[in-house]
């Protein structure tokens, strides 16, 4: 049995009276990609936001590499100042990119890494080397995203697909254990989704551990090792892509997938 890199146990989250997540449990192995599918409002995005500590679950445990990052019953895991470091286990690519408009593609990719480097004890002594290293890494990442000619462009000079690829490079720069995608192509024109999906596909081939919330069923089937179908805040069904898409066990899964048949998304 391989130790999972991510373990999520019994996560519950309510906003006011509305239960958005009800007892969510799943795990993920290193180098694997899990796709979370489900209709809008099923809680997929909230789950990702919980993993990235943008929301605090009411119940449950989150473990990465067997280290308990969050336990709703253990106040010591909820200390605000420690949460910042915990976030670094995860990367998050947003639906609408959220690039920093005043920075170029390269600066967007370097900013957080540079700020973190300032906390290193050897920063003052090796400032120049560290800076060069960060720059080289960011350039390599942007090249990997096919943006070698766009490094000095500002976000408003880039297409949506290019912006999203910068956002992916920016998230990768911090070398997260688990990279999360929140509907990465939903804000894009249809002709631009391909370039973003290709990049994520390449990451999957390179064994990047990923949690991908998506409405692109064909893509989910193709890229993920594991599919989670959520509806109304619960995991209705999870399993191998061939099983979920070929022989869904639950009626609700069948209904959901039927909605995608013939829409071109599947």
């Amino acid at each position, binding site marked *: 049995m391989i130790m999972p890199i991510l373990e999520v146990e019994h996560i519950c989250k309510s906003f006011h009276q509305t239960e958005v997540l009800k007892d969510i449990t799943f795990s993920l192995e290193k180098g694997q990609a899990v796709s979370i599918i489900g209709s809008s409002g099923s809680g997929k995005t909230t789950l990702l936001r919980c993993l*990235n*500590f*943008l929301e605090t679950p009411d119940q449950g445990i989150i473990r990465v590499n067997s280290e308990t990052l969050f336990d709703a019953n253990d106040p010591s895991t909820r200390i605000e100042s420690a949460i*910042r*470091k915990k*976030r*670094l286990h*995860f*990367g*998050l690519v*947003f639906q*609408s990119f*959220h*690039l*920093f*408009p*005043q920075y170029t593609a390269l600066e967007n990719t370097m*900013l*957080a890494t540079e*700020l*973190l480097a300032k906390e290193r004890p050897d920063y003052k002594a090796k400032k120049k080397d560290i800076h060069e290293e960060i720059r080289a890494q960011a350039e390599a990442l942007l090249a990997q995203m096919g943006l070698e000619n766009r490094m000095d462009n*500002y*976000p*408003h000079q880039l297409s949506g697909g290019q912006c999203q690829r910068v956002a992916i490079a*920016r*998230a990768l720069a*911090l070398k997260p254990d688990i990279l999360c995608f929140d509907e990465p192509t939903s804000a894009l024109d249809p002709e631009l989704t391909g370039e973003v999906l290709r990049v994520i596909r390449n990451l999957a081939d390179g064994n990047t551990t990923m949690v991908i919330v998506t409405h692109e069923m064909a893509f989910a089937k193709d890229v993920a090792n594991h599919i989670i179908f959520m509806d109304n805040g619960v995991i209705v069904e999870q399993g191998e892509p061939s099983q979920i898409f070929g022989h869904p066990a639950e009626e609700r899964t069948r209904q959901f997938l039927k909605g995608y048949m013939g829409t071109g998304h599947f």
Partner: protein
Amino acid sequence: MGQISEQLPIVVESLNIGFLQTLKLFFVTLTGAFPLGLVIAFGSMSRFRPLSYLTKLIVWIIRGTPLMIQLLIIYYFPGLVLHNPIWGSGEAGRFLAASVSFIFNYACYFSEIYRGGIQSVPIGQEEAGLVLGMTKPQIFFKITLLQMIKRIVPPMSNEIITLVKDTSLARIIALQEIIWAGQAFMKGSHGISGAIWPLFFTAVYYLIFNGILTMLLGRLEKKLDYFR
């Protein structure tokens, strides 16, 4: 006419001295009110309710009453009521009291402009910073601040130009700024009396200075056009 040309150098010299005091008050106010406004903005946005209510109360009082009253109270209250003239005597004391009044007054106006600017930056910017492991101060100074500045340049320009003219209110506590200097020639000063034309000259000083400011602020706005 000949009389005016004789009087002109005297008047200009006097107006220059007054205008210097106007400029001093203008720059001191900006230097103090820019950062203080930010502190007040954070106070009114604080999630600690008592602090945000207190700040909003202060902003309400300062914005809700005339600056002229604030000048009079701040200048005379310590001496007349507390028998402790903290401002000191003479022009230096008046300048100090005027500076304090102006800084507080403008900081309150600025704080509301800052608040609007900060709140107009999409929440996604902060969240993106958070998931990248940035601290709140890093997010503010590296991400939010410049986007806020870009958004507030037009309303700030308005306030700054108004401030240039508002400095003349300080003559109510006899601060010797440019209008005080110009008006002195009506009552009689340097052997000139009953002359209203020096007042027109003071208007020209304001016009030119505001023209320069408008140009500089326009340039700043252009300079921030490189991002959206």
